[in-house]
């Protein structure tokens, strides 16, 4: 009759022929129980993301301010660009138009006198006299 070693030696063969390091199962239990333990984080750790966000915002503002203060158009623009920018002057300072006109001619013309008289309600007859 054929021998059945799996049946004949079942008591021995069904035992696990492996060992585990000493105290392994008690260590394993406490390690695995940590999986379900609620994660306790300190207030400091919870604030870290907000602090990081605030710091990056501050850094962005600092870099922006530096660029606005230190990188002006004159540093980077060509002469042609400066001419274009020069045309912007009247919009930022409308009186500049009059300053530039003054520099063109300092003499008082007839038209200037007439405009002055009209502005000061001088009668029309008097204007005729001037002409």
């Amino acid at each position, binding site marked *: 009759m054929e*021998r*059945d*070693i*799996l049946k004949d*030696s079942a008591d*021995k*063969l*069904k*035992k*696990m*022929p*492996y*060992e*585990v*390091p000493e105290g392994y*199962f008690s260590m*394993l*239990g406490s*390690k*695995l*129980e940590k*999986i*379900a*333990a*609620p994660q306790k984080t300190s207030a400091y750790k919870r604030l870290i993301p907000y602090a990081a966000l605030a710091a990056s915002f501050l850094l962005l503002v600092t870099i922006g301010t530096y660029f606005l203060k230190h990188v002006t158009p004159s540093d980077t623009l060509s002469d042609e660009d400066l001419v274009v920018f020069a045309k912007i002057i009247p919009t930022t300072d409308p009186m500049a138009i009059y300053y530039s006109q003054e520099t063109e001619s300092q003499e008082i013309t007839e038209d200037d006198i007439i405009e002055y008289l009209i502005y000061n309600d001088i009668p029309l007859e008097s204007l005729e006299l001037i002409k």
Partner: protein
Amino acid sequence: MTDKEIIELYREGKTESAFNQIVRLYSERLYWHVRRFLCSHEDTNDILQDIFIKIWAALPSFRGDAQLFTWLYRIATNEVLNFLRKQKFKSLVSFESMQEMMEKKIDEDAFFNGDEVQRQLHKAIQKLPQKQRIVFNLRYFDEMKYEDISEITGTSVGSLKASYHHAYTKIKDELQKYF
């Protein structure tokens, strides 16, 4: 504590205590279940942590249709199969067959304390196809009912009986070559 009591505990909202009871009741059993497949203590230790993380994550979805212990074994077995799939890829890269790799692990295992028959038995188990290996381990070592193995593997009882018969015969023949 029984499986039923653990489930009751969970339903009462004491989820942490229920999980800790599962750890106390099943960590050792699942350890040996996994180790029979992987042989190495280090691999088993690594994978056991992942198994219990999955159990904890899947606990809310446990409806109680299946038995708790078959549900736990199913998670553990799936995790083992995933690990073995990765190992198979590693063995392809190293030009070493999966079987050779596992036999080497048995031979080089510092924690192996069995005799030569036991060594050959565990090597013979590694030669079995995956499904036969699962059925053989659960039936021969854990003496589980086919109905429970069916819940774990999702295979019919008839098919499991056939698989076990094939596995048993192969191992018996393999051992007879040596003893």
